[in-house]
């Protein structure tokens, strides 16, 4: 059983994300990338191609760029496949969190949900980071 991470987006966002992920998490991940609409052709054949070479035991976690997009929509039929998870609006913290999970057992749906919740919190307006959070700056000089 292997865990595959599919990154799919309009054009090269997916490729960049996968590239950045490998910078952090190393090259041992099973990553496949789909950069949609680099030409003016429909993407269904490209999507189908991603699943070739996988066994029915393999888990697939598909991460797309945007919920409303046709890239995400075209993956919907595949979530009826066992152990196939679709996440849209992926950010690097989420990709990283998923890549860091143990690969000997498949990820469960509630685990993925909680990783998604955590990753949402990683979208931060840094200027507005609450100063009161540094109340407990315990700076002792002696």
């Amino acid at each position, binding site marked *: 059983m292997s865990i595959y991470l599919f990154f799919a987006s*309009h054009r090269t966002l997916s490729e960049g994300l996968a590239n950045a992920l490998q910078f952090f998490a190393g090259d041992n991940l099973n990553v496949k990338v789909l950069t949609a609409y680099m*030409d*003016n*052709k*429909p993407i269904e054949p490209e999507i189908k191609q991603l699943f070739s070479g996988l066994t029915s035991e393999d888990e697939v976690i598909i991460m797309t760029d*945007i*919920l*409303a*997009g*046709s890239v*995400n*929509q*075209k993956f*919907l*039929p595949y979530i009826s496949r066992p152990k196939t998870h679709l996440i849209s609006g992926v950010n690097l913290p989420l990709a990283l969190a998923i890549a860091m999970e143990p690969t000997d057992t498949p990820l469960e749906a509630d685990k993925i949900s909680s990783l998604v919740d955590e990753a949402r919190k990683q979208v931060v307006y840094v200027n507005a980071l609450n100063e009161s959070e540094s109340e407990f700056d315990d700076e002792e000089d002696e």
Partner: protein
Amino acid sequence: MSVVLARIDQRLIHGITVNQWNKELHPKRYMVVDDQVANDDLVKSGMRLSKPAGTGMSIISQEKAITNFKAGKYDDHKVFLLVKEPSTLLNLIKGGVQVPAINVGALFEQDGRVPYTKRVALSEAEVQTLEELSELGIPVSFQYTPDDSPVSLDKVLKKQK
């Protein structure tokens, strides 16, 4: 009749249509007219994921659309009409649906189509249909997003020749 714009876009409901065009047109209803999609629950549910808050979304067959428009079902609100191909629009208009303008957004290069713009490829039959629509007095222009400058059908066809 309340269609504000009819758009030909093979991807139908997607980011560009529900974001940029939404800001431009402020439709109350997105109407996808396509016989095949109207019968595909999975594709329909995918499209409904993208529906902007506060709008309605109809995904119906050509026949239903004609019947409903004729019955005045959409008279009191703005409708953004979306179809996959020019022939669908021609059928709707011949069936009595009033369309003020046609936007050619995106058609893939497949099935014997020839590219005309970066986003639109057309077969000979489709070119003829677009010309027929234009002859009915409806302005036909090519524009992928509202920020792009619209290019008239005449200009696009001339460039190719």
